[in-house]
Structure formats: structure tokens, C-alpha cells
């Protein structure tokens, strides 16, 4: 019954609109058109208006939040700077360590070669298969080796100390990275609240066309189908006919 009333009302309005248009009465036509959606869509417009206002206020509030302002203006650029410094420190530590190792390896090798050579001659002496003149030469060689061993041990000791000290980067970079993590958490919290207000509950997954690089596997981070170790990689490759 009600439906019929509304329909007849609309029909009347429509007729009036056609009539006014035919008569060239623009003002009347506009008035009728404006009256049309009033009942039907008023609620929707009001709701959209309310949501827009809320979102607007949230954004203003977000922007005015001192913490956010400080984070964006100072701490974010600082964080980038800090992380760049982390790369620099880890690189320096790696280079210091590598230099010490590269210096030490030939030193250790010389100790090994010389002691092997002496051991062979020493065996000959112990087996009483050595002439006196050879023994004199061996005695000189042993004296020379002891001096060399003492000097080389000092070099190895110095280099190992350098390697030890270079590990200090872990503490320093750890502290810096921890500060950056705290900042990211804080900004994340604010952003999550903003997203919650805006009602965007579903973030559409971006479809990736190509295989994207994932970088090193990180525990507790969703990175797709990552293999855990070299054995898994070998298994996969052998399943592919490698």
C-alpha cells in the first residue's frame, strides 16, 4: 500500500518535472530535481559526511600530535643516519678483521712449514742418522726458528687482539638498531590507529608479476617460501635435476 503511495508521489513529481521542463521553467525544474533524492539518500549523505569529518579530525590530530611531528621531522632522518652509520661500522669491523686474518695466515703457514721441516731433521738426529756437520747446521736452524717463532707469535697475538676488539661493533650497532626499532614501533602504533579510524580493514595484496628479491631470511618475518639452509637448497636443486 505504502509502495503505491510513494510510486504515485514519484509519478506526480516526474510529471511536474516534465511539465516544467516543457514550459521552460528552469527554477521550478531545479526545485523538483533537488527534492527528489532528499528522502532516499539523505541518510547516506549524512553518514558519508560524518565519516569524512571523523577522518579529517583524525588526520589533523595525527599531524598535530607532537610525538608524530617530532618523529617525522627529526627522528626519522636521524634513524636513517644512524642506520647508515651501522653499515659503516660493520664494514670497518669486517675490514679490520679481514686485514688481521690476511696478515696472520701466511705467518701461521710459515710457522707450520718451518716446524715441519725441522721436525723431519730432528727425527733424523734422534735416529742417529745425522753427521756432526749437519747437526751444527740443524742447531743453527733451530736457533733461527725459535727467534722466528717468537716474532711470529707476537704478530699472531697482535692480530688476534685486533680481531677481538673489532667485535665491539656488535654492542654499538646493537644499541643503535634497538633505538631505531623503538621508533618504528611507536610510529607503527600511531599509523595503525589512523588506519583503524579510516575503516580500511582490508589492505589489498599487491600482485607481484616478477619474482622479487627477498634478501636474507629473517626469523619471525613473513617472507614467503624461504629455504632454511644449504641442505634444503641442495635438495631443491637435485629435485630439479641438478
Amino acid at each position, binding site marked *: 500500500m505504502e509502495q503505491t503511495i510513494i510510486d504515485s508521489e514519484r509519478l506526480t513529481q516526474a510529471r511536474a518535472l516534465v511539465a516544467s521542463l516543457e514550459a521552460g521553467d528552469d527554477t521550478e525544474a531545479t526545485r523538483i530535481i533537488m527534492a527528489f533524492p532528499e528522502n532516499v539518500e539523505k541518510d547516506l549523505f549524512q553518514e558519508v559526511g560524518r565519516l569524512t569529518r571523523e577522518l579529517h579530525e583524525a588526520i589533523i590530530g595525527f599531524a598535530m600530535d607532537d610525538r608524530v611531528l617530532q618523529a617525522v621531522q627529526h627522528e626519522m632522518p636521524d634513524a636513517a643516519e644512524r642506520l647508515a652509520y651501522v653499515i659503516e661500522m660493520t664494514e670497518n669491523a669486517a675490514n679490520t678483521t679481514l686485514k688481521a686474518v690476511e696478515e696472520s695466515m701466511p705467518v701461521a703457514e710459515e710457522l707450520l712449514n718451518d716446524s715441519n721441516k725441522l721436525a723431519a731433521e730432528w727425527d733424523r738426529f734422534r735416529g742417529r742418522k745425522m753427521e756432526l756437520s749437519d747437526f751444527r747446521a740443524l742447531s743453527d736452524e733451530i736457533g733461527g726458528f725459535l727467534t722466528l717463532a717468537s716474532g711470529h707469535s707476537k704478530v699472531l697475538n697482535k692480530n688476534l687482539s685486533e680481531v677481538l676488539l673489532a667485535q665491539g661493533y656488535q654492542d654499538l650497532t646493537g644499541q643503535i638498531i634497538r633505538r631505531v626499532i623503538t621508533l618504528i614501533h611507536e610510529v607503527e602504533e600511531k599509523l595503525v590507529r589512523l588506519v583503524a579510524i579510516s575503516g580500511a580493514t582490508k589492505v589489498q595484496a599487491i600482485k607481484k608479476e616478477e*619474482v622479487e628479491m627477498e634478501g636474507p631470511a629473517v626469523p619471525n618475518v613473513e617472507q614467503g*617460501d624461504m629455504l632454511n639452509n644449504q641442505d634444503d637448497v641442495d635438495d*631443491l636443486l637435485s629435485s*630439479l635435476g641438478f
Partner: protein
Amino acid sequence: MDKNMKILVVDDFSTMRRIIKNLLRDLGFTNTHEADDGLTALPMLQTGNFDFLVSDWNMPGMTGIDLLKAVRADPNLASLPVLMVTAETKREQIIQAAEAGVNGYVIKPFTAGTLEEKISKIFDRVAG
């Protein structure tokens, strides 16, 4: 396996290049050369008569996978043995590298033993 073979090590991090070069030297390979990404590596490969390529994946300029594809597409380089040494451990990526014609795949961090094993495997196959 020819210990004098000419090897190109490609990685954007100089420390990693240095580590790989040291390990290779320990294994008896001393004829090693370096490049910091695919763009610098490719011309070196084209003119340098290299016998073996060891490459990272994630590098600015030209990535390791693109370098591998470029090598396989070049008739003069197509049969060059290539070992990937990379932190990329995503299944799809390893399959992609296999399809592009990689000869071995070592994931970082790795040990001297793994590197040696993969290199011997590659050259056993090349020789066989």
C-alpha cells in the same frame, strides 16, 4: 681442476669479495679478479677469458640473475660455469636461477667446506 683458472668474483660488498677471494686462495685458486656488479662484470667477462664466475644476486646496477641470463645469452660465454653465492633463499628464486642455467647455488652465510664442495661438483661435471 685447474688451480690457475681465471675466476671473477662479483659482489657489491667489498668485504664479501674479500672473504670469497681469501677462501678461494685457501683452496689454491689465486687467479681471482673482482667486479662490484653485473654491469662492470659483463664487459670483463666478454674480454677477459674467464674460466669461472662466482656471483652474488642482489646488486645495484645489474643483478646476479640478470648477469647470469646475459652470460647464457652470449654465444662466447654461454658455457661459462656460474656459481651463485647469495643471501636469497626464496624457493621461487632458486628455481628461477636453476632455469636460467646456474651451475651451483650457495647461500650466505656459508662455510669454506660448502664453497669447496660446490666448486668441485661443478668442475667434476664440466670435466665429466
